[in-house]
C-alpha cells in the first residue's frame, strides 16, 4: 500500500485507509481514484500529488526568457504591486495614514497600466505552467545558494503552492467553465493568495495556516 502527498497542503492519501469521509473505501488504489478527484483539504488536482518516498523530480531550470533591458524598468503594474506591498508594510506598523497614501499610489499605477491584449484563460495557464517549470525552480536554486536566503525561500514556498492551486483551478475551468462556481463561492487568502472553492472559507489556510477570517470572498466582476 502506498501513500501520496499533496504538494500544496501536505494532505496524505493513504491507500490502506482510503478517505472514508469523502466516500473512498479503505484499500482504494491511487490509480482507482477518478481523474477529477481533488485534495479533500485544499482542492488541488490529483496531478499535484507526489508519491511519498519517491525521489524528487529534477527541476528543468532554464533562464527566464525576459528581455534584460526591459527588466530594468518596472512596469506600471509592478510599481502598483510595489506600492500596495509598502501599504501593507505601513499597516503592520500601525501607520494607517501612510498605508492609505501608498494605496493611493498603488491605485494610480493600476489605473495607469495598459490592459492585456486579447486576454484568455489559456495564455494565463501557459504562463503559470512556465513559472512552475522554470521561474520557481530558478529562483529556488538562487535562494538555496549559500548563504541561504530564508526570506526569499519562504515567499517562494508559499507562492509556488498558490500557483499550483491556480493551475488546478484553471485546468478544472477548461472542462467545467464558470459552472464550477455555481452555488458555491471562491475565497482568497489575503496573506498568501491561496484560492479556495466552497460556501465557507476553510478553518485554516492550507498554505500559510492563517485563520479563516483572513479569507475574503471574491465576487464576479460587474460586466
Amino acid at each position, binding site marked *: 500500500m502506498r501513500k501520496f502527498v499533496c504538494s500544496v497542503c501536505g494532505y496524505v492519501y493513504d491507500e490502506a485507509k482510503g478517505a472514508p469521509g469523502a466516500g473512498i473505501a479503505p484499500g482504494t488504489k491511487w490509480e482507482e481514484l477518478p481523474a477529477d478527484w481533488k485534495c479533500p483539504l485544499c482542492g488541488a488536482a490529483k496531478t499535484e500529488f507526489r508519491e511519498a518516498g519517491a525521489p524528487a523530480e529534477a527541476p528543468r531550470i532554464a533562464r*527566464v526568457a525576459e528581455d534584460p533591458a526591459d*527588466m530594468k524598468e518596472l*512596469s506600471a*503594474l*509592478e510599481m502598483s*504591486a*510595489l506600492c*500596495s*506591498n*509598502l501599504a501593507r*508594510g*505601513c499597516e503592520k506598523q*500601525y*501607520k494607517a*495614514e501612510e498605508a492609505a*497614501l*501608498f494605496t*493611493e*499610489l498603488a491605485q*494610480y499605477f493600476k489605473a*495607469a*497600466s495598459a*490592459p*492585456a491584449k486579447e*486576454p*484568455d*484563460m489559456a*495564455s494565463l495557464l501557459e*504562463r*503559470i505552467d512556465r*513559472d512552475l517549470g522554470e*521561474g520557481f525552480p*530558478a*529562483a529556488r536554486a*538562487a*535562494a538555496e*545558494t549559500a548563504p541561504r*536566503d530564508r*526570506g*526569499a525561500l519562504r*515567499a517562494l514556498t*508559499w*507562492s509556488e503552492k*498558490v500557483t499550483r492551486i*491556480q493551475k488546478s*483551478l*484553471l485546468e478544472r*475551468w477548461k472542462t467545467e467553465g*464558470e459552472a464550477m*462556481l455555481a452555488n458555491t463561492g*471562491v475565497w*482568497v*487568502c489575503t496573506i*498568501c*493568495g491561496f*484560492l479556495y472553492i466552497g460556501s465557507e472559507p476553510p478553518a485554516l489556510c492550507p498554505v500559510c495556516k492563517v485563520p479563516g477570517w483572513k479569507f475574503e470572498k*471574491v*465576487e*464576479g*466582476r460587474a460586466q
Partner: protein
Amino acid sequence: MSEVFAVRNIRLCTKDCLCLYVCPTGATDTENSVIDTDKCIGCGRCAAACPSGAISMAPKELPPQQAHSDAVTAAMDALLRSKTEQERTAAGLPGALAAAIERSCRIQAEDIVREAGYMLPQSGNARDFLRKLIDNPPSADFPKAAAEKLLERLPGNEPKQEKKPVKTWKCSVCGYLFEGESLPEDFACPICGAPASKFTEVASR
C-alpha cells in the same frame, strides 16, 4: 530614551484593561484604542500585564532590511514580472475565477517584491523610488502630494546609505556583513573573530 514602545492589537484585546492600572504615564488610557506614543516610555509593564497577549513592544528604530544576493533579486524580479502579467491577463477576463486569480496574483506579487528588496517603507530603496517619482512624475495626474507626504512622514532607517554610498564586506567564515567606506586592516569579525583577510567585498545595492 527608550528604544521600544508599546502597541496594542485590538483584535486580541479582551478589555481586561490591566494595562490601564500598570502604566506609569497613562499612555494606555486613550479613547481610540491606540497607545499614545508620546506618553509611552517603553517600560513594557502593560505588555507583561496583559492577560490576552494583545500588547507587544515594537522597536522605535527598525533594523535594516535583509540583504539579498543579485541572483535572488533577479530571479524574484522575473517572478514579479510574471505574476503582474498574470494579474493583467486575469483583469481582462470576465467571471469570478478570473477576478479571484487577479487578486491572488497581486497578493503573490506583493510578497515577491517584498523579498526582492522592498520590505520596509522606511528603507533607502523605497525612499529612492518615491524621490524618483517626485522628480519625474510619470504623468500630469500623478498624485505627487501623496509621495511627498510619505517621504516626509516616513524617515529613512538607513542614514548611512542616504548620505554616501557605502561598501559592504562579507565574512567568508560566518557571513557577517560589515558596512562602511573602507574595511580597517586590523578588523576582526565581531561574530566569529575572523581577521580582515577573511572578508570579501560584495556588490552593494
